[in-house]
């Protein structure tokens, strides 16, 4: 297990233990399990991932974390990505808003890894959801790369801030037994694309009961649309279950 993975997993385990030990009857936990299937121009092969995430909501606050695994039989890396996020709900006049901060880690290869972080504000009404914020990407060399390729400097590169956005429309309110939505965004759970590479997402869900919900997502990725030279980049299909534990 490499050093980067341990750095990320230790706080995640600590947070999970804290949540389990301090679970309040007024809090809510939302574990989520899902599987990804997709392909893109740089993936070389089909992508088959399994993801697990959970969020813990107490009052107006929420914290969450997740991990993504490559479950293809011949995959070189089992652990792929992780994220952690915090948010707080608030109101300005009649508008329901939430402030969010997040961190992502992409254990891309034994040479290069990526760290993303950002902040955004969300505005939700019954059918429309808008997220707007800023993010930064840091690409970094691993200690293996530095040693193996005798690199003496320039171990990482931090990019300028980019715009984070999500514009989403859903046909039913959140509480409905089923729903269907369409969104344009540059943020997925474990992936941030540059602002100029929007992704199209179609989402649906169905509630089996108050505690359990099935969901599915289809993502279309394109490149070059903001350059007026669009090209297909890839797709991703995702399906999974979300549990709602607590009030």
């Amino acid at each position, binding site marked *: 297990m490499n050093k980067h993975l341990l750095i990320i997993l230790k706080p995640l385990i600590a947070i999970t233990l804290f949540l389990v030990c301090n679970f309040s009857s007024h809090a809510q936990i939302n574990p989520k399990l899902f599987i990804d299937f997709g392909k893109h121009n740089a993936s070389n092969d089909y992508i088959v991932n399994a993801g697990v995430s959970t969020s813990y909501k107490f009052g107006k606050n929420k914290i969450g974390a997740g991990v993504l695994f490559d479950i293809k039989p011949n995959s070189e890396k089992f652990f792929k990505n992780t994220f952690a996020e915090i948010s707080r709900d608030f109101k300005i006049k009649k508008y329901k808003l939430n402030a969010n901060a997040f961190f992502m880690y992409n254990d891309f290869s034994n*040479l290069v890894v990526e760290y993303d972080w950002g902040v955004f504000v969300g505005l939700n009404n019954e059918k429309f959801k808008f997220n707007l914020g800023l993010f930064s*990407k840091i690409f970094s060399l691993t200690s293996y790369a530095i040693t193996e390729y005798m690199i003496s400097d*320039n171990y990482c590169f931090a*990019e300028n801030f980019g715009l984070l956005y999500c514009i989403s429309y859903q046909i039913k309110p959140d509480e409905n037994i089923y729903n269907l939505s369409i969104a344009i965004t540059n943020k997925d759970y474990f992936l941030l694309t540059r602002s100029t*590479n929007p992704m199209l997402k179609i989402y649906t869900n169905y509630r089996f009961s108050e505690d359990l919900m099935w969901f599915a997502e289809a993502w279309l990725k394109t490149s070059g649309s903001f350059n007026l030279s669009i090209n297909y980049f*890839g797709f991703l299909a995702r399906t999974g279950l979300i549990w709602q534990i607590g009030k």
Partner: protein
Amino acid sequence: MANRKIKILIISIILICSISSCNKADLRSMFISYESVNTRFEQSLNKNMQTGYQTIETTNDEYQLFVMSDSHVGSTKNLNTFMQNAVNADATAVVMVGDLTTGKEDDYDVFAENIEKYPTMLKFPIVGNHDIFFNGWNCFYKLFGSTVYYFVVKGTDFSDIYFCLDTGSGTLGDKQLEWFTNQLETKRQLYRHCVVFTHNNLFRARHIPTTEPMTEELLVLLDLFVKYNVNIVITGHDHKKDVSFFGNTTHIILSALLDKNVDAAYLNLIVNDNINYEFLNL
């Protein structure tokens, strides 16, 4: 009420797009492309099979390559200055890193007429996003042929390899990426220096809404650059010069050669046992 707001929003977007669509922008390609990057790559490889990959022989221990980007012809004052300076400096070749024209056939003709004034100078052009507007790839292919290739500069005791890649659509595409990976795997160790030219800047150097590659593709490229010790990656697109470093690779973004650009500049790559570079202002 909500429906009315949506209608107003849609009409506003259409109006803004219509008003902002000057004759240099081809809004159709925001949604539908004329051809994919894979198509351009396959046509380029076909052309490469006919013409072969060029090897430039030199007896000097040091040589120069002049590199420019984003001339956006129309006007040709800076283009001619660049070409003349390359001839005067006895440069080994010029490399043109995309957005050479507006994509329109007339501008391609103007561009070709002007660079043909310097028949002894070797030229290595690549497409940028503007070059493929208005179905411009057909003009590029007819005039220059391939946009994905490599060339070699061979001296008495060295050989350097230069890759020219097509990122006009914001991605290399799966086929070109596979080709590039194979080329690095099989050839890199045979050469002293390895330099990559492509149009789209890879890193986000400043706050402007131009497209950089998808993160998934960028990570693959960064991995390849480290693994195969790519010395320099030279791009354009952003119009403002920038130099950054990641590991042993230098990433250079060129200033636009565009006549209207007050900071118009090009790059002189001076190659010996090291690779040095200087930006030359116009």
